């Protein structure tokens, strides 16, 4: 267990260490993106991994977060730090509402409903020009001001994103070890059996939905403050939902470290592919991406992390507790 624990610590610390070691702004920019995807994948994982409700509409919450803090900043001069919380709460409410509407749907039907929900928000964002300026987008004041969530140094963005990711990792980890975590495990293994043992699976799904939406929206605010520009296609595009889910699935859903591993594998892979192939062959990197996803699902349907864990457990059979395989392990 301690071996696995050390690996996880190293994985968490690595990006910040890298940011401190180098002053290269390209690396800082890439790291910020990686860490933001880590936050989003962890947030998605609370619903998709812990509660096994596969959403491909999470960009709805991302966009709610981005637009809420940005509109509050532009319209009322409210600090995005507060706007971030407001956006999170709004997204959580929207998530619970969506959950109430779709709780009867199973499998692909839930997935379809989430896609539709995100599309509705995208179309609204395009068409409610009075509020969002439509496709023209919204631009934020770029004067560095920490109180307004705008920093002069890229390294500060890396740090903020890192704190968010590590914080959400710890929260996921604690959630996994809590009573709620055990209930979620039972729910996703067998809902009928879980209910017979007194687990209120309906409430559990709504809770997961609310938490997941909240943290996704926080990622949305960070994105808006990092780029200082948002428009409907960039913060409500279905490809963001897809990537959040994809990262978690590749890394291994249902654990706290899985989405982070997935982030480290998928995001830099995408960045390199795009840099190498993007210029002359637009789209090729995403063809590789799609086929890569199918390959991972085919060879490692549980994702990379559980597969690695199994390998490690195979090397050091100790038979004690078996806690490493109980799924609560982070």
């Amino acid at each position, binding site marked *: 267990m301690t071996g696995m624990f050390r690996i996880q610590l190293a994985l968490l610390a690595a990006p910040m260490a890298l940011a401190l070691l180098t002053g290269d702004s390209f690396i800082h920019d890439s790291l910020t993106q990686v860490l933001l995807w880590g936050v989003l994948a962890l947030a998605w994982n609370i619903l998709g991994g812990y509660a096994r409700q596969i959403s491909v509409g999470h960009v709805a919450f991302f966009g709610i977060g981005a637009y809420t803090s940005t509109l509050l900043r532009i319209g009322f001069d409210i600090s995005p730090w507060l706007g971030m919380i407001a956006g999170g709460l709004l997204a959580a409410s929207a998530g619970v509402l969506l959950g109430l509407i779709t709780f009867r749907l199973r*499998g692909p039907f839930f997935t379809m409903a989430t896609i539709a929900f995100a599309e509705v928000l995208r179309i609204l964002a395009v068409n409610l020009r009075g509020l969002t300026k439509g496709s023209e987008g919204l631009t934020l004041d770029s004067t560095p001001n920490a109180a307004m969530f705008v920093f002069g140094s890229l390294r500060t963005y890396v740090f903020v994103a890192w704190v968010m990711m590590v914080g959400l990792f710890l929260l996921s980890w604690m959630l996994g070890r809590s009573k709620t975590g055990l209930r979620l495990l039972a729910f996703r293994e067998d809902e009928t059996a879980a209910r017979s043992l007194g687990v209120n699976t309906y409430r559990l799904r709504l809770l997961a939905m609310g938490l997941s939406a909240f943290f996704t929206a926080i990622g949305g605010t960070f994105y808006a403050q990092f780029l200082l520009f948002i428009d409907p296609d960039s913060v409500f595009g279905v490809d963001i939902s897809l990537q959040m889910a994809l990262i978690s699935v590749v890394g291994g859903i249902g654990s706290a470290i899985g989405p982070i591993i997935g982030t480290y594998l998928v995001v830099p892979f995408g960045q390199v592919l795009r840099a190498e192939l993007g210029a002359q062959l637009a789209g090729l990197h995403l063809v590789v991406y799609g086929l890569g*996803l199918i390959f991972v699902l085919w060879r490692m349907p549980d994702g990379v992390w559980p597969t690695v864990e199994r390998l490690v457990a195979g090397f050091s059979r100790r038979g004690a507790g078996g806690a490493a395989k109980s799924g609560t392990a982070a």
Partner: protein
Amino acid sequence: MGLSPATVDLVLASLLLGGLYVTVSIGLSLVFGVMRVMNFAHGEFVMLAMYAVYWAYEAGGIDPYVAGLVIVPAVFLVCVTVLRPFVLWLVNSPPLVQVFATLGLSIALQNLALLLWAGNFRSIRTSYSNTLVDIAAMRVPLTRLVAFAVAFLLVIGLHLFMKHSFFGKAVRATAQNRRTARLMGINVERIYVLVFALGTSIAGLAGVLLMPIYSVHPGAGFQLALIAFVVVVLGGLGSLPGAVLGGLLIGLVEVCSGYFISPSMKQIVYFAVFIIVLVTRPAGLLGQRGAEEVGLK
């Protein structure tokens, strides 16, 4: 009370659009009904067929409908050969894998189109692109009429095939009870591959019919898939008559909301319809309760 010309116009436009949506959706419904797999890459096959028509026309000057005679069988062939292992793996995988594997295929195909034809909107102009036909005092574009007629024949043909052919009965039996179908001597794996190929070929046919009417871009498949999901859920999961009803209804909703509200909001309206149906009748208008378990009727 006589019908005003505007009403007739709206109804006719709805029917024509609905017919197109039926063609786009019915293959998805068929595949889901039999295999219990929601193919998130269904729209991409429509989109690729549209590009194939475009390419044949631009490069070889081949008429779209003539090209269709090659494209549709080609899609079928690809499914029973290249995609065969994928289909068999898919049908035996857990739902999570099914969702993401078809999404992965969707991403790959969408960007394959981007790679081959870039991101611009492409359309073709044939000699009959602007031809109008008179029906009951209305003037209707020929291409839309062809699409509707083919959709009509397709639905009738598919219905007769499923109802009366030995193969069709075996397909329904497989959908309703997989294990017992095996006991009847049905090679269930073969049925899955053929049904997937049939459903996907119909998507290809939809692409052929759409291309003379609309323009195509790599993201078009996703937009069409969204419509197909709405149609399938609205009509009833895995129900072929349901897909027809759902397609026509969405055609009506889209035309009317475009006319009475605003064209930019038409998607909002049918997504609203989608959510309302999901909430009030999760099994769809013609679906049976628990149809998710029971399958194709």
